[in-house]
């Protein structure tokens, strides 16, 4: 379970997150929507400790992410992350991209790591691309590679930071399909997204962020059908 309490985040003087309280249960799929600059991506970075926070707390399964005593590298094994700019490692083949972290971080043998990697690549539909370098993959394939790479660490949570925003329109579908598959397998997911269809169909809850504040959270039917906040209504009217 991820518990966020009164989370404040500043970039210099800029107050990006203004007191977020949020619980995400095991097995839940949460979509986070909102305009650019509303703090939703920053929220993900605060959850896996890639960004320090200035006030409040984030706990993952009872472990304080930002405590000095926390072994953050160990904790991050639980938290897979997929980025907007998929960030595949260009100097490694698809298989090596996926096998590297299990070997380095989890201490798997080379053979074990390669086996895990082959399994995860097949899982996301890249079984044919094992020995290919990322430069020879399409954006959608590279993003699925990034998903496989995160899954190879056997995370308990997956954080998706606008995983489809940088893709050509015709490539969005294959990545959303992979995310949908993970959701059906019971993965706990927090998806920052601009894909309203995905948010509506796949998530258990949808959160709307506005200028660093979580304005509204609830089941998709409520957010998309009966939004309480004026900002939410306006945002949804514009994206549809």
């Amino acid at each position: 379970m991820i518990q966020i309490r009164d989370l404040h985040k500043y970039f210099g003087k800029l107050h990006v997150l203004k007191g977020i309280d949020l619980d995400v249960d095991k097995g839940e799929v949460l979509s986070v929507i909102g305009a650019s600059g509303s703090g939703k991506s920053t929220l993900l970075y605060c959850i896996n400790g890639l960004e320090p926070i200035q006030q409040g707390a984030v706990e993952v399964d009872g472990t304080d992410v930002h405590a000095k005593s926390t072994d953050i590298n160990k904790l991050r094994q639980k938290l897979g992350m997929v980025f907007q700019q998929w960030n595949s490692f260009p100097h490694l083949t698809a298989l090596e991209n996926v096998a590297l972290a299990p070997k380095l971080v989890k201490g798997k043998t080379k053979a074990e790591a390669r086996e895990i990697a082959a399994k995860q690549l097949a899982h996301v539909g890249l079984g044919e691309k094992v020995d290919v370098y990322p430069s020879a993959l399409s954006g959608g394939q590279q993003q699925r590679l990034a998903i496989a790479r995160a899954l190879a660490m056997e995370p308990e949570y997956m954080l998706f930071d606008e995983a489809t925003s940088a893709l050509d329109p015709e490539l969005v579908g294959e990545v959303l399909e992979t995310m949908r598959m993970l959701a059906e397998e019971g993965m706990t997911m927090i998806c920052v997204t601009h894909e309203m269809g995905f948010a509506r169909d796949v998530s258990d809850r949808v959160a709307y962020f506005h200028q660093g504040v979580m304005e509204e959270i609830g089941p998709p039917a409520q957010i998309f059908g009966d939004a309480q906040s004026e900002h939410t209504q306006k945002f949804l009217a514009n994206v549809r």
Partner: protein
Amino acid sequence: MFDYNFHWRPVMKSLPDLLEAALLTLQVAVLAMALGIVIGLALALIRLHMRGPLLWLASSWVELARNTPALFQLFFFGFGLGAFGLHLSPYMIVLVGLTFNCAGYLAENFRGGFQAVPDTQLRASRSLGMTAWQAYTRIVIPQVLRIVYHPITNQMVWAVLMSSLGMLVGFRELSGETQFFASRTFRIFEYFAVTAVIYYVIVKLILLGSRLLATRLFRY
């Protein structure tokens, strides 16, 4: 109008000595580059990530190495330190001087290389649970090495050619040896012509080797 007769025999007789000196040239250049790469990498990382006296030291190193003649740098490690009672052998003067110079130039190449690898590569690595050290050694530096590979080759060629300055501090590498024989026989043109060919061949071989290595190293 042209009454100079070429005499190649003395040059051919001392060719084994010249080739031996050429090996010395290559040795000192390779060593200086190996040290220069390690130090240059360290200087670049200091300049990118540190503050305080270390940053000042690294910046001064890079500035002095790049903004003064290489010959003066050799003179400093030879006669300059000599004036303070620290006498290096001619071999050490050239090795230290070349290392100092190469490290300075390579530091700037590395700095550009690090800036060309997006920060997000580091973030993605850390998000997988890698330590900063693992992320740097396995993800960032391999990519930097590809970016600076050709500049490094260039610097290697430069180190070979620059080592000829060694003859001015009494080092009998290829140029020093050539000068030694040339002044004994007065066949100055012949000696330096042959030596120029030897330098040319060495550099050609380095470039060829570098290209072959590149196809093995960089398959992406």
